[in-house]
């Protein structure tokens, strides 16, 4: 129990330290946490509305919600793929559970996502629709996606340390998932017979839910969310087993 508290402390302290460290590298420091998503969103908004013409704020924000949720997922998992390798020297010196550094990377990326997501919600309120009673559902979907990201990251971090080739494969898998998660299109564009496959991907369900809640002020589809939660739970159990099995074995199996 004491150890768990200490690990929680390490993770939180490392996340804060990472953000602080990042901020100190640049002249504008912490301002970048707001400025960067603001710029990215602004450029994207401008490009979508002015260059491709026709589209109104709803269409643009639909894509933006999808992009941001996707980046939270992809960025976190890709960062955690290298977490253990990057901190190998630390693992060689102190007995730390191997989930610590993946969790730190997921945490840091989640804070970054938080800033972007809040900006997007504000933009939605200003341009499309104000806050609604569906808003509490947002917490549930965010929590689910967070657990989903952690579960995948825990497994990926160990597997990539063992088989570095996996990192290359991972890039392709992410590209495939990217196009299958409904970021540039909404669910109604998916052919009927492909829908079960589309919804088997939790990220697609999460993105669809965010849009329902923020843009259309509706509660998300709970059956689909339940299925996504089940998938998440399965991955979490598998990842837990992988972490448990390799925790004290990893350093004997590979030299990074």
């Amino acid at each position, binding site marked *: 129990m004491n150890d768990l508290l*200490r690990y929680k402390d390490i993770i939180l302290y490392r996340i804060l330290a990472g953000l602080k460290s990042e901020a100190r590298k640049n002249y504008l420091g912490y301002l970048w946490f707001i400025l960067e998503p603001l710029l990215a969103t602004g450029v994207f908004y401008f490009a979508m509305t002015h260059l491709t013409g026709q589209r109104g704020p709803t269409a643009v924000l639909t894509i933006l919600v999808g992009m941001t949720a996707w980046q939270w997922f992809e960025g976190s998992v890709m960062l955690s793929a290298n977490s253990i390798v990057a901190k190998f020297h630390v693992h060689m010196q102190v007995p730390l559970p191997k989930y610590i550094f993946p969790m730190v990377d997921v945490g840091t990326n989640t804070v970054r996502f938080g800033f972007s997501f809040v900006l997007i919600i504000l933009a939605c309120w200003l341009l499309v629709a104000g806050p609604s009673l569906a808003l509490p559902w947002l917490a549930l979907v965010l929590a689910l996606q967070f657990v989903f990201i952690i579960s995948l990251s825990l497994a990926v971090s160990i597997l990539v340390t063992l088989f570095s080739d996996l990192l290359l494969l991972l890039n392709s898998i992410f590209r495939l998932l990217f196009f299958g998660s409904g970021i540039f299109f909404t669910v109604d564009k998916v052919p009927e017979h492909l829908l079960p496959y589309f919804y088997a991907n939790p990220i697609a369900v999460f993105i669809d839910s965010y849009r329902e809640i923020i843009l259309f002020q509706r509660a998300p589809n709970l059956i689909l969310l339940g299925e996504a939660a089940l998938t998440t739970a399965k991955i979490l159990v598998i990842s837990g087993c992988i972490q448990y099995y390799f925790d004290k074995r990893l350093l*004997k199996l590979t030299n990074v």
Partner: protein
Amino acid sequence: MSDLLVKLDDVGVYYRGGKSRKRSPNPPEQPWALRHLSFEIRKGEKLGIVGRNGCGKSTLLRLLAGIISPDEGKITYSSNNLHIQLLALGVGFEGHLSGAENAVLSGLFMGKSRRYMEQHLGAIQEFAELGDAFHLPVNTYSSGMNARLGFSIGLQTDPDVFLIDEVLGVGDHGFLVKSQAALQQKFKSDTTVILISHDATTINSICNRAVWLQNGAILADGVPGDVCRLYETNTS
């Protein structure tokens, strides 16, 4: 006996990484880093482990610190909370953070709580002789300052069992003398210390028990004078 801290019972470790990626289903064909190791570590003991490069000393330290698990045999600790710590210089320093922040971070890695480290920041700053630089980012430090900070943090973590791998003192002459004195102090106090070295003279002078390790097995265990004489006559 009640003062038994760690007991190794027929312990063996083998590595599968590195040279060959192929996995053999039969462990005995693998290069064993340690094999059939049995010994005990008692409270307050100053144990010196002597051996040539590649004899398994570092693997033994990692095993004792709980960084890796044994592939055969069993290690028993006197309690689950037994804190065994490798004296490491600057574990995971973050360049853009200050010496003080890194001290807390490093301490957390080494098994101390945040509050404990914050309470000991003053002592670390003083021992490392960093002055106001303690609050500057460590990427502005010289390598000597880095080593001094790392050493001071390690010293403050105060574990039940201290594992020391060859580093007996760091820094320029002044700090070298001071850090050696601080370690000597550990050897005089009731802290349990395990020192690893290929140099028998050091072990002979400060330890009260020595183990000679070769090819992952114990060749001699006993009074430092006898063990070191055996080691020196057989390896020179």
